[in-house]
């Protein structure tokens, strides 16, 4: 749980930190599209150095960057191995029994790996610099046009906020239940993985029951405070795009256009 950096937020005061969450979300989308349009290693290099520069400007510690890559490390490795072994074509570099590593495999493998690493890096960089609440606000705003198609943007944002609000509360409660069950002789620490998973049942059942009860009470409390969905609601934090945000958006769009036009 603690090593999962995706969605972890590190407060700061860099340009990227101060950008409007809506702009960051759209920019992320544009950059991801750009990543999939890139066709050459040169393109990746240019893209990578752009991301690298932004990363330096955020002054995030390097370890967070690597921690963010950790969850996808296995996927990257598997991609690399599969391509090396099974993509055929061009010169044969290694022959080992029936297995061969050929030119096309190495090329495509490293290409895909680079794309994946850059994709994760970009995303992690955005999530590290955007508070989850700002994210929720941004998502709510960006989904607004799709309201008519039945996309519940406000509800999604409200759910995110409430989830964030209750994560610490439920963690505390989980800890309390764990201790209570341990006091009655429950064992959470020994045995193989299946045994341990099964031993978690007496922890999870009360936690779920209590979560449902909380949800019920919270719904009543929200209704008592005149909550009636997103309509006619004002916001304490009104999102406001500043010149910085327009520069940022222009830059990423320019990058995408450049990649498409030059075909790098």
């Amino acid at each position, binding site marked *: 749980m603690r090593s999962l950096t995706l969605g972890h937020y590190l407060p700061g005061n860099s340009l990227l930190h101060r950008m409007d969450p809506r702009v960051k979300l759209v920019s992320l989308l544009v950059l991801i599209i750009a990543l999939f349009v890139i066709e050459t290693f040169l393109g990746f290099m240019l893209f990578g150095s752009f991301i690298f520069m932004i990363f330096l400007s955020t002054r995030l510690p390097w370890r967070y960057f690597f921690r963010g890559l950790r969850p996808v490390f296995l996927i990257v490795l598997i991609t690399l191995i599969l391509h090396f072994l099974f993509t055929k074509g061009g010169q044969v570099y290694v022959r080992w029994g029936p297995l061969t590593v050929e030119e096309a495999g190495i090329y495509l493998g490293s290409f895909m790996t680079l794309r994946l690493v850059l994709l994760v890096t970009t995303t992690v960089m955005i999530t590290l610099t955007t508070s989850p609440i700002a994210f929720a606000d941004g998502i709510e705003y960006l989904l607004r046009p799709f309201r008519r198609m039945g996309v519940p943007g406000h509800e999604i944002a409200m759910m995110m906020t409430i989830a964030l609000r209750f994560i610490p509360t439920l963690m505390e409660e989980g800890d309390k239940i764990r201790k209570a069950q341990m006091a009655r002789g429950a064992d959470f620490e020994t045995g193989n993985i299946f045994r341990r998973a099964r031993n978690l049942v007496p922890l999870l059942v009360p936690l779920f029951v209590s979560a449902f009860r909380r949800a019920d*009470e919270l719904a009543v*409390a*929200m209704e008592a405070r*005149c909550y009636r969905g997103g309509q006619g609601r*004002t916001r304490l934090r009104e999102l406001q795009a500043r010149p910085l945000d327009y520069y940022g958006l222009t830059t990423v769009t320019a990058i995408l256009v450049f990649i498409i036009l030059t075909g790098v």
Partner: protein
Amino acid sequence: MRSVLLDLKDVTFDYILENKQSLRAVNDLSLQVEEGEYIALIGPNGSGKSTLARLLNALLIPLFGEIQVDGFATRVEEHRWEIRRRVGMVFQNPDNQIVATTVQEDVAFGLENLGVETSEILQRITESLNRVGLSAYAEHAPHLLSGGQKQRLAIAGVIAMRPRCLVLDEPTAMLDPRGRKEVLDTIHSMNRQENITVVHITHFMEEALQADRVIVMHRGEIAAMGKPETIFNGSIDLHLLGLEVPPIPRLAEMLRAEGLTIPTGILDTDDLVSYLCS
């Protein structure tokens, strides 16, 4: 003459149970609460106190009878929001009524729902946090607050909406003595300084002693009603209604039985001490 804020006429409410049977929670109850009054609502578990509270701000609608809040009937759906902005509710569990991830945003929640302008919201947040003494915590995450602070935050969130009436459903039941005192002081100052009507449901008889009027509920009906002095002077058998007599009135009663002449209306330690020593 103060005006009537809450007007309940022959109110009955049933819960429908899972097996389709109905359970009567409030039975043919009539009550008028005046503007600025402090009402303590006591009664054993299942006597209909909480149901009554939920009926007051249209979270529940009576089966029979009529409830009017400041002239708005709870039965009319269009009035519901007008009623809820007039009658603010604070619940028992401090955790389960805080919505947002910071203190100030939680105070803002109700105001956002009402569609108040951002500048006005900011002003009212400052104001309400000042009133409950949480100004220093505006940016804090709610789970870092103590129980008493959480309840005061809940009160701040409600008074930011400028209600006429505060309904509190056992707001101190889950708090330690210090938290209880904080919350009680806050409620009393709201009542005295802002003239906000208070309906305070409680299990603690000491809390009821400070009310203008005590209502004892039993099986969905009002079993007794009056000033704390008359409710706790021994004339009503609270034991029979499943309640405990608070310590000082009980002591006064025992002394009376021993032959001392103790006037009724002595409810707290100071009164009793000063009477016995005079």
